[in-house]
């Protein structure tokens, strides 16, 4: 099978990946709260949308209005992409509610129903880029590692077949170097991007590192990352002692 690439629009990142992420791959975006996961995902969606690729953003942790009002601060964000339906932002909690899933723990049936709805939406909207923010909040409701594995695996396979590239965000405690809360998400993902920080002269510098990317010859160098109104920008991290 030959795959095309899916550009994020973040120059250095795409360059590292040989132009972009393999189309149809599932990438875990790992970072603690405030590390820029949501921004990275949005930039990924918007960049696709500007090229006519439809995208969907499933949010669990942040309410819709908060998410969009944060996005307005970025120059890359274009309200019209949402208005014309190129990007659809979906509040997963409403889906939970509509499925009657108000319990904290889901049964296998619940999980399948949820997976089904996410798949249906991806199909209906014919998206090429999909984000779930965060997979951690979702996994929290699944009762076992097997269920988590099954969920991510099935979702990934379905989306890969649809040539839809997927970003899943994974929330970890600050100052830790693990990739996921449940220790399982990272094994199913094709790629892992780690958003961390390093200390320099008492200041914290945001970093981004491609930890793993199946089928791509990438380096594991760390990038310094900045989040400004222009969104995420990268520059090779100067070596700190």
């Amino acid at each position, binding site marked *: 099978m030959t795959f095309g690439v899916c550009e994020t629009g973040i120059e250095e990142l795409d360059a590292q990946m040989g132009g972009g992420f393999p189309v149809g791959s599932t990438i875990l975006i790992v970072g603690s709260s405030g590390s820029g996961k949501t921004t990275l995902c949005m930039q990924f969606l918007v960049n696709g949308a500007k090229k006519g690729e439809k995208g969907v953003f499933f949010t669990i942790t942040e309410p819709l209005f908060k998410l969009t009002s944060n996005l307005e601060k970025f120059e890359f964000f274009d309200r019209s992409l949402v208005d014309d339906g190129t990007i659809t*932002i979906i509040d997963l909690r*409403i889906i939970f509610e509509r499925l009657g899933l108000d319990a904290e723990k889901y049964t296998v049936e619940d999980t399948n129903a949820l997976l089904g709805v996410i798949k249906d939406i991806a199909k209906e*909207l014919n998206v090429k880029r999909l984000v779930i923010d965060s997979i951690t909040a979702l996994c929290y409701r699944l009762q076992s590692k097997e269920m988590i594995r099954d969920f991510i695996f099935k979702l990934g396979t379905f989306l890969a077949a649809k040539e839809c590239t997927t970003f899943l965000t994974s929330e970890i405690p600050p100052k830790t170097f693990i990739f996921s809360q449940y220790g399982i998400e990272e094994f199913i993902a094709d790629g892992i991007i780690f958003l961390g920080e390093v200390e320099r002269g008492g200041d914290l510098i945001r970093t981004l590192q491609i930890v793993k990317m199946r089928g791509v010859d990438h380096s594991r160098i760390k990038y310094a990352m900045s989040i400004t109104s222009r969104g995420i920008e990268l520059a090779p991290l100067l070596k700190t002692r």
Partner: protein
Amino acid sequence: MYEWIERDEVDFISTGIDKLDSLLEGGIPKGFFTLILGVPGSGFEILIKQIASNGNTLLFSTCETEEEIMSTMKRFGWNPENLEIVDIASEYAKRTLLVHGKRSSSYQRRIDLDLKELIAECSGGKPIERGEEEDFLNMLSKRFTDSRIPEKTIVHSLDFFLDQYQQSEIIKTLHIMKMSNMKKKGAVFVSLTKGVCGELFERKMESIADCVLELEVIRKGTSFDRYLAVKKMKNYARKIGIARYIIDESGFVLETVERIL
């Protein structure tokens, strides 16, 4: 809704059971908070209803619906004229049924979803508004701080609240009830099944209560002896006593009265 009864010289509120009143030498002192402890089979739910059927009463019922209560009362020939029932049991059943109904059919619900409509709803940007579900404990304290509360108030039973809330929260609410009752000089009855929630909580409850009535069942050969003990009576130590009772078609019948002090 309720008429304030002119306070006369009487310092007691009748329980509605003559012999119990006489065991208590007049009834429950005004402003008292009474705990009714009972073991299953002691018929304390009947005692509660008998107390409720007399005088101006507000009954919070968590384990029986209004319908059940009324039919039991009818069977005993009690005709409560000024009884209001807050039917928590029905409300709770409705809520759990609703949730249960939802849970059992997430598969079906998925099939029934209109995808286009769902997408429109989920991307609408409106914050989710959940239907306000009233907190039962909150409801209790709210009703109690309301000035228009009848003379007698009964909570039957605390067991329900113990399943739903933290003990500390419950105790806080009970204190609120106790204080406002003391000011209004009414009578509050709270029931609790003995041995359900641990001795420590029972002890705490007994210390909060001004009066503790305990219903016991003792097996004697092939029959059961039932006893009603007045375990605590604040400031009326001589009223502590115990009486054997039976329940016949008219309700509670206290047989012998023994004084401990």
